[in-house]
């Protein structure tokens, strides 16, 4: 009888893990579905813009650059949201902003830029997307690690896309051998330390 018990235990474990696996798959499908619907609404969004294009034939170029300026603008807005969450040392808000940034980057339309800029932008977007994704599912210290490299990506992106709003490139010499970030305001609010060292840093550069 002891044998039967042992066998049962082993098989029960096998069964439980099998069930667990199928649950996991189920969840995954769900989240993929969610992604799809998000993506399709994204597509819808771009489609609308496309329709406007047709109506306003002749001004295609300006429409293109406008749509793109708004892509870049949205990326920057999401980035700022993320930065503010890090300044506030709020992990959940940072994760939310990271996910939002990831989906904005997914929909980024680079078609109106020169071939060279497109290559560079695609590279930046691919890299930034990975950091945003990780920020979406990590602890605070990891979020900040990824934010550092993401900030570098954002600076390189702005160098190509330009910016409507004045941006301040700020720098904290203490975090990880010196780390920069972008802000809309001149006053230093440190996203790498938050309240621990809120005012640590200086403005490196003003970007117009």
């Amino acid at each position, binding site marked *: *009888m002891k044998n*039967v*018990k042992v*066998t*049962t235990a082993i*098989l*029960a474990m*096998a*069964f439980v*893990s*099998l069930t667990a*696996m199928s649950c*996991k798959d189920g969840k995954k499908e769900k989240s993929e579905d969610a992604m799809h619907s998000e993506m399709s609404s994204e597509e819808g969004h771009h489609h609308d813009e496309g329709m406007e294009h047709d109506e306003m034939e002749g001004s295609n170029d300006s429409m293109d650059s406008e749509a793109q300026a708004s892509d870049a603008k949205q990326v920057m807005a999401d980035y700022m949201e993320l930065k503010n969450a890090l300044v506030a040392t709020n992990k959940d808000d940072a994760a939310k902003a990271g996910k939002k940034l990831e989906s904005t980057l997914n929909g980024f339309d680079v078609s109106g830029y020169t071939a060279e800029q497109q290559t560079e932008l695609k*590279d*930046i977007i*691919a*890299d930034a997307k*990975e*950091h945003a994704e990780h920020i979406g599912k990590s602890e605070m210290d*990891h979020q900040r*690690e990824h934010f550092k*490299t993401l900030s570098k*990506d954002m600076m*390189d992106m702005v160098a190509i896309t330009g910016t409507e709003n004045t941006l301040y490139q700020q720098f904290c010499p203490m975090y990880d051998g010196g780390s920069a970030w972008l802000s809309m305001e001149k006053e230093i609010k440190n996203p790498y330390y938050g309240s621990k060292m809120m005012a640590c840093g200086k403005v490196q550069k003003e970007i117009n």
Partner: protein
Amino acid sequence: MKILKTIALILLIAFIAIQFFPTERNESDVIPKTDFLLVNNPPENIGTLLKESCYDCHSNNTEYPWYNKMQPAAWFLEEHIKEGKAELNFNEWENYSDRRKNSKLKSIINQIKDDEMPLSSYTLFHRDAILSDAEKKTLIDYMTKIKDSLE
């Protein structure tokens, strides 16, 4: 006891049945020219460490022990390998841009430093993959050197 026997039988059948669900094996004989080790040509000990502790999930070729060919372990593994390769595939190293290499190296260094990689669920069965403190330092120093050469 009769109930127990019935349950055991059902589970046994389930266990056998799931063996017939195929999983995709991550196996390849070809090491592409873009492979990290081919491109960077590190000292032999680095290559051995990477192959032993990282390549099972971060390359196109996994060395499967027998129990990982059985279900449900094989499913579990398949998922991990898929994820691992999406994050970082050492075989594809030279296809990454400098920007992405830099990001990957930074993550490699941080994850080894923080004991997040290799995964504990992996080292539980692969005792050889555990990195000693000295080995960690060797790897981190090497990766830092590569990273600095990019900048």
